[in-house]
């Protein structure tokens, strides 16, 4: 999954960088207009999920390398995963609000 999310994120990261450049100096109306495009909304949701999935796996490797007490290690991994889950929720809900309502 780490490799799969990595591969998926190569084009997604490039897409996002280009989109972000286009949104320099944007106001809220511009963000809404951007997310009203169904392709943009879909890609943004995909990017959020893939990014946090990838980074949760990556941080787990880092934690396993540096934290050795079994309890602390497991605790840290759990905190990272819950944190990522919450951020995915926040991100996806924000995209939905911009895309569907606002």
């Amino acid at each position, binding site marked *: 999954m780490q490799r799969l999310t990595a591969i998926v994120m190569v084009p997604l990261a490039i897409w996002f*960088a280009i989109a972000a450049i286009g949104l320099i100096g944007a106001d809220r109306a511009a963000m809404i207009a951007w997310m009203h495009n169904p392709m943009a909304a879909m890609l943004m949701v995909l990017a959020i999920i893939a990014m946090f999935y990838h980074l949760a796996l990556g941080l787990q490797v880092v934690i396993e390398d540096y934290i050795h007490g079994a309890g602390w290690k497991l605790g840290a991994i759990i905190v990272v995963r819950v944190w990522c889950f919450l951020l995915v929720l926040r991100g996806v809900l*924000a995209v939905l609000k*911009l895309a569907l309502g606002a």
Partner: protein
Amino acid sequence: MMSDPRPLSPHLQIYRWQLTSVMSILHRITGIGLAVAAVLLVSWLGTAADGTEPFARMQGFLGSPLGLIVLFGCTVALFYHLCNGMRHLVWDTGHGLDLKSVYLGGWLVLAGTAALTILTWVVGLARWGM
């Protein structure tokens, strides 16, 4: 273990820095940096969803000197991790694992990172100036 700290033989002070080892730890460092940047990204989307005021404050911060420095760091980290990540994916297929290729790939990644960062900022700053 914490209860019995034994001395370690010195390593970082002894072994010569090489492109391979430096790029390896940079991949980890940029990965961690991007994990922090991910929070910023979600905040950016979140404040846009929240309302005109919160988003205007966020955009204001991103345009401030500190914000620009943060964004610059984000772009360097992103492009480095992206390019070096692709180098890792090539290694996963079993290709390019000889020393010459590893070094060549390494230099290509550094060049790619610099090129993408410069391109992004030249285009970005030009757009901002409009």
